[in-house]
């Protein structure tokens, strides 16, 4: 690298004489700070002389020839330079490959990685900087062992499921706790209305470009101070901050195209007509009488997927300004992202801004504020389990109908060519309705730090996470709901709803830090109050004068509306003590006590202790190795909790109900005053190893977690007057292994590094209050349901009949008669698979040559099943004739002797379409999640155009997927956010492929 002023050259200078000290000047830069790295400390070996670089990275110091300069800076390799009368000392600091000194934010404090005793994974922003990301949780996919990220569909701004070390609960939440700059934020779906299964995602309001790093806390020790809400793991998001440097202006632009990853192959009109006629004939009916006439019915042949798909455009702009001096630092940014979905009229736009300022008023007193704001406009379309959805409609709709009439107008309910129930013109369903969810999010944290002395420090903060969602829906009289389904809309149908949620937080933490000889003690003590008020409202209107009037003020009937308020709170105290002897033996004890409003008097308070220890074997005197630089053993044990379930379930409640124009009260909830916290006992063992001077770093973790007192909605016999009650019953176990390794394979002119992580989690329900399995998921055909929750099984277990094949003589499906009663009933159903992967992970290879860099990021999931429930409609053996069929139907049984796996078609008969393992497929996949190529323009060129740095890059997401799955995409989940029924593909939009070009410029 030309820019590397090779210090070694200087070392070969010929002679040196002892001379008197003189003023030596120099300049320190780094790859990231080519204009000078401020704050680097310089000392001269064997003396007490030292200096710190200024804003331009310059320094001056008294030195004499022969003395050794030591340059050190956090996160960088320490360098030594011998002074031999060079006129100017130039040093390029290298980021340290070994991340031992990396500062890791853990709970309410931070610690250097080498001192960690718990399981923490850090993901720095540069790991995902080139990817086109909609939300910050998307950035976690494949980046951390033990973190399973599944995008529920290819909808921009759509739901993403993040699970850390498996599912710990059945009915309470399994979503990790997200903390942005110290403030816990709202997660999950914000929308109050259903779009057929797919929710939106609260995390899409956090701009990934403003994020500096993400820490994932995985074991009881790391989570100790969040213990009360930490059972599902904790994700700490740190936004970018300014530091002491010159003003740095950065501009980033990324533009690209978005396409669906795969298109399902469907029958054309003629193929479908032949099949439907055959199905009717097989059922003993006359196909002509049903109006299925060759040459007439198939006169139109519409490829509905082509009609509703488009190539979307993605564009993203980001401008940031950061800098600071000795006492003040700041980071300001503004971003805009606009992503068009691949379905017509589907679009996500986000405007975001951030302002992080910190000011040191006196050496002891610092005040700061972090503020992230965003406004998003999500133009949604219906999908999945909605007959009038866009993608779901396009898959199902018969090709006999056309989207537009001869004048090019969209065919609607009043047009003669309208297919009607259940084939609503999906083009009209995409283009005509207005489903706009606008959301404002503000995450702000005001904090003060007072340093009493070198030992004591007090940090207090008050923060808010405010989310304001407004949903504006209108379906015109030319849509299914607004026009065709007169029972709902008739002449237009509008809904307006709002939801305002605030998470208010205040805490104070007193830190103590003391080192006496080899004894290092840190301790903290804190208290916290969290309140979560939520108010919501909604109103529905129908009978609009015409489609020119689309807001509820014009509705003829405003017939449903309401508003509500709910509030919950948490009060906590916590403490942590850490001790290490000579940075060799580490002990940590953490403790948190919480009181939650979600439990009744007497059960509100719970205690969450955690203990951990670490032993850095490599620092033992007996340990000597040139190869092994670091070897650390860690272990932890502790308890975490979960209270994320509905409010007031400890009280028996009656709610308002209407009758005949009056209102009264009726029982709504059977209370259980004994309800208490769900508790998870966690054990973790870990080994960290670092070889060859940090060129190989690896971590192996294994854990055993057991969740007891599950917050579980126990089904009750209705003879009680109720159908369920919440109770603490049951336990779930998660155990697993996580392995990660990072290697620097080559670091000469050609650079190559590799990151690999692989995780395995085994989930099992150890105990439930009843041996009777609980049904979950969708209702089955010929079976009770698609999923069950049962003792001994994992969450996400599929059930169905055992499909043995197609009888070559009759063409009918053969199912195993497991109870040998001569009938195929739901008593013959059995466990057919599970949605949880046996193993998942990712591997990334990064290459660098001259000014080029290339990153290849593969992500995989192995051993998971996907229930292709779409086949229940699109390969349905004739159980109804209202859906198009996939080309697999061409393989159907037609005459005796046919050997096939697709049963014969009989109109109106669903026996051949019973829910069975015929619908279950291997969902393992290997996906080239991201491929990106970057190029730094030579500094000669950039200097000429007044830029410090200019990087151009190309990036492709979801480029190739290797899978045996026959549906559109194995990585989908129609019941977004569901734990008991994950991995079901039911008309779910596949992931999208994004190909983009970007440019990143840093101004001088």
């Amino acid at each position, binding site marked *: 690298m030309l820019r590397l002023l090779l210090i070694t050259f200087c070392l070969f200078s010929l002679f040196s004489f002892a001379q008197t000290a003189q003023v030596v000047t120099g300049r320190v830069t780094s790859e990231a700070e080519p204009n000078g790295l401020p704050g680097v400390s310089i000392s001269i070996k064997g003396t007490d002389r030292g200096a710190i670089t200024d804003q331009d990275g310059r320094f001056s110091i008294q030195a004499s020839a022969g003395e050794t300069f030591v340059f050190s800076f956090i996160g960088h390799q320490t360098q030594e330079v011998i002074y031999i009368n060079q006129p100017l000392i130039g040093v390029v600091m290298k980021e340290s490959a070994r991340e031992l000194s990396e500062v890791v934010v853990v709970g309410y404090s931070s610690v250097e990685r080498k001192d960690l005793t718990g399981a923490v994974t850090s993901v720095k922003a540069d790991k995902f900087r080139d990817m086109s990301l909609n939300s910050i949780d998307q950035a976690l996919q494949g980046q951390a062992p033990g973190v399973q990220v599944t995008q529920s569909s290819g909808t921009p701004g759509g739901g993403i499921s993040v699970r850390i070390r498996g599912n710990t609960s059945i009915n309470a939440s399994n979503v990790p706790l997200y903390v942005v700059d110290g403030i816990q934020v709202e997660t999950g779906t914000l929308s109050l209305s259903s779009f057929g299964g797919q929710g939106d995602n609260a995390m899409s309001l956090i701009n990934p470009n403003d994020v500096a790093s993400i820490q994932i806390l995985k074991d009881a020790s790391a989570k100790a101070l969040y213990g009360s809400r930490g059972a599902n793991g904790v994700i700490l998001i740190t936004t970018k901050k300014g530091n002491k440097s010159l003003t740095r202006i950065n501009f980033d632009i990324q533009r690209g195209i978005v396409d669906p990853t795969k298109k399902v192959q469907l029958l054309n009109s003629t193929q479908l007509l032949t099949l439907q006629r055959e199905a009717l004939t097989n059922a003993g009916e006359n196909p002509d009488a049903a109006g299925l006439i060759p040459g007439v019915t198939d006169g139109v042949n519409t490829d509905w997927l082509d009609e509703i798909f488009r190539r979307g455009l993605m564009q993203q702009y980001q401008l940031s300004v950061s800098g600071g001096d000795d006492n003040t630092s700041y980071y300001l940014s503004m971003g805009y992202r606009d992503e068009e979905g691949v379905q017509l009229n589907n679009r996500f736009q986000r405007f975001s801004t951030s302002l992080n300022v910190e000011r040191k008023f006196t050496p002891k007193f610092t005040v700061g504020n972090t503020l992230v704001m965003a406004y998003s406009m999500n133009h949604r379309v219906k999908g999945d389990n909605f007959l009038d959805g866009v993608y779901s409609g396009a898959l199902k709709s018969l090709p006999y109908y056309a989207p537009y009439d001869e004048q090019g107008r969209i065919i609607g309910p009043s047009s003669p060519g309208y297919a009607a129930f259940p084939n609503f013109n999906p083009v009209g369903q995409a283009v005509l309705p207005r489903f706009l969810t606008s959301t404002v999010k503000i995450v702000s944290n005001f904090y003060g730090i007072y340093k009493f002395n070198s030992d004591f420090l007090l940090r207090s903060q008050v923060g808010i996470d405010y989310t304001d969602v407004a949903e504006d829906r209108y379906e015109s009289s030319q849509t299914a709901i607004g026009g065709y389904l007169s*029972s*709902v809309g008739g002449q237009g149908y509008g809904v307006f709803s709002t939801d305002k949620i605030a998470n208010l937080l205040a805490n104070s933490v007193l830190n103590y830090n003391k080192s006496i000889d080899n004894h290092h003690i840190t301790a903290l003590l804190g208290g916290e109050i969290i309140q979560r008020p939520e108010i919501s409202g909604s109103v529905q209107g129908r009978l609009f004068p015409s489609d020119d009037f689309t807001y509820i003020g014009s509705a003829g*009937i405003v017939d449903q509306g309401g508003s509500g308020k709910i*509030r919950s709170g948490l009060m906590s105290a916590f403490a942590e003590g850490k001790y290490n002897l000579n940075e060799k033996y580490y002990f940590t004890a953490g403790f948190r006590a919480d009181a939650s*409003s979600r439990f009744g008097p007497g059960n509100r308070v719970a205690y969450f202790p955690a203990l951990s220890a670490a032993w850095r074997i490599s620092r033992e005197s007996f340990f000597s190795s040139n190869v092994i630089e670091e070897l650390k053993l860690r272990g932890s044990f502790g308890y975490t909790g979960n209270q994320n379930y509905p409010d007031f379930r400890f009280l028996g409640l009656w709610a308002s*109900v209407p009758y*005949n124009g009056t209102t009264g009260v009726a029982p709504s909830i059977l209370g259980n005053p004994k309800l208490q916290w769900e508790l998870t006992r966690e054990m973790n063992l870990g080994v960290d190893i670092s070889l060859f001077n940090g060129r190989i770093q690896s971590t192996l973790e294994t854990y055993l977690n057991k969740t007891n007192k599950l917050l579980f909605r126990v089904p009750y016999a*209705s*003879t009680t007057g109720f*159908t369920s009650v919440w109770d603490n019953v049951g336990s779930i176990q998660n155990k697993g292994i996580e392995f990660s390794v990072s290697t620097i394979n080559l670091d000469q002119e050609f650079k190559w590094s590799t990151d690999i992580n692989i995780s395995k989690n085994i989930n099992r329900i150890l105990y439930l209050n009843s041996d009777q399995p609980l049904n979950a998921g969708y209702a089955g055909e010929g079976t009770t349901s698609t999923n069950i929750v049962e003792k001994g099984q994992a969450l996400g277990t599929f059930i169905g009949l055992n499909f043995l094949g197609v009888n070559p003589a009759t063409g009918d499906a053969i199912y195993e008669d497991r109870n040998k009663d001569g009938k195929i009933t739901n008593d013959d159903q059995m466990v057919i698979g599970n949605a949880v992967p046996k193993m998942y992970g990712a591997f990334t290879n990064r290459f660098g040559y001259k000014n080029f860099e290339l990153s290849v990021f593969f992500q995989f999931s192995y051993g998971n099943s996907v229930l292709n429930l779409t086949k229940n409609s699109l390969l349905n053996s004739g159980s109804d004739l209202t859906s198009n069929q996939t080309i697999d139907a061409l393989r159907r049984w037609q005459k005796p002797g046919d050997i096939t796996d697709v049963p014969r078609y009989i109109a109106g008969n669903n026996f051949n379409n019973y829910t069975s393992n015929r619908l279950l497929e291997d969902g393992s996949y290997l996906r080239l999640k991201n491929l990106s190529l970057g190029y730094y323009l030579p500094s000669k060129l950039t200097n000429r155009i007044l830029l410090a740095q200019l990087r151009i890059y190309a990036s492709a997401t979801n480029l190739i997927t290797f899978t045996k799955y026959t549906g559109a995409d194995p990585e989908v989940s129609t019941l977004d956010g569901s734990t008991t029924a994950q991995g079901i593909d039911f008309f779910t939009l596949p992931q999208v492929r994004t190909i983009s070009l970007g440019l990143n410029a840093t101004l001088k």
Partner: protein
Amino acid sequence: MRKHYSYLIIIAFTWVLSSCEYTLEPQPVDLLTDELVLNEPKDVANVEVGLYNAFRDIMPSTIIAGDFTADNLTHNGTFSQYRELGNKNITSANASAAALWQSIYSTVYISNFILEKLPTITGVSTTERNRVTGAAHFLRGYAYFIALHSFGGVPEVLTTAIETNRNIPRASVSDINQLIIDDYTAALGKLPDVAPNAGYSSNYAVRAALAKFYLYSKNWAQAETYATQVISSNKYTLEPSFKNLVLKDFTNESIFEVGYTITDDPGTDNNLGLNSLFQGRREIIPSNQVVVALASAESGDRYSSITFNSANLAGTDNGWSVAKYGTPDQDNNNIVVIRLGEMYLIRAEARANQGKITGTGSAAEDINVLRTRANAPTITSATQNQMITLVEQERRYELAFEGHRWYDIVRTDRAAQIMPVFNSNWKDTYNVWPIPQREIQNNPALADNQNPGY
């Protein structure tokens, strides 16, 4: 400076302590706790409304049961519980069966709650106390009547004791019949003779229910007596035009109906409104057989129960829709529990079975009242057997889509003749619905006590 900090700390502590209760004991908004819901006189009316609200949920399910299990309706949609009912392939997992069962026991719970709690409240006027107690008995009795004829002998739940009722076996048919008659007897006399509005119970509604009870028990004399009491009370008059029964709520002949307004449509299971099933989605449509029957001369104006739209014709869709219950912007979605027309039919059937075929005080006289109103030809002569068949047909014309057909042909043992012709999958198993699977799973006392054939 240091002084200021200590002030700050004191202020902070005060704030923390004072906000403790606020944070940890938020009060539920727009919800009442068990302890508060019924403990003073002004609460009584609210709980009474709650009782009717629970009861009305039974009615849409009885229409599904009564018309769809039999041959009046066919399936034209996508939901598996309706497909099962349409294809006569009903399983114990059927969601419609679960919904009917749940609505029955929700009603029973509130009735029991009132009957246990109301006596302990002082200061309630005798009129109100009687009215609410009477309604609790009447609606509980009627709920059990529906339960008995939909599921057979069901658990006899007469308290609100949760633990007892989680593990409670099926009672015998005769026990439930006794419970019903006891409840009706307890209600009779406590209620107003005629309610201010047919949306509430009355003594005459109880008498009408008794007529129905004795009809089902084949106690023809008692059935005739109670039907006559209602008919000759002159509290109710037949609507001059049958169309009014299709298009209007609270007709002059309504004895008891459950009330909805334009803002709360009759929901069935899965929250699908009846008018969504019948009109919007057209998930369920009239069968060809009922269309032929309603279009016959004998049916006359009762043809107005259905409508036709050629735009709907396609594949298995015959283009016909149920007109009763209308669309949501037509406020005619109340569901009639008992009306005067049915009293004539009950009396006609009771008389026919007692050999009173034609002439004054005969079955023919009662049938002809309805035929005349429907502008259909009247009956002049018939044998007893012919008359019994005529009554059966007349019930189909008059009461189509009001939830009767299945109950009628099962209680007269005619299902075995009628249904296999309509659908070859029919078997005697379907004379009752299955005990919902979730109830068997969650109530140990029901184990191994499913209805035969399920």
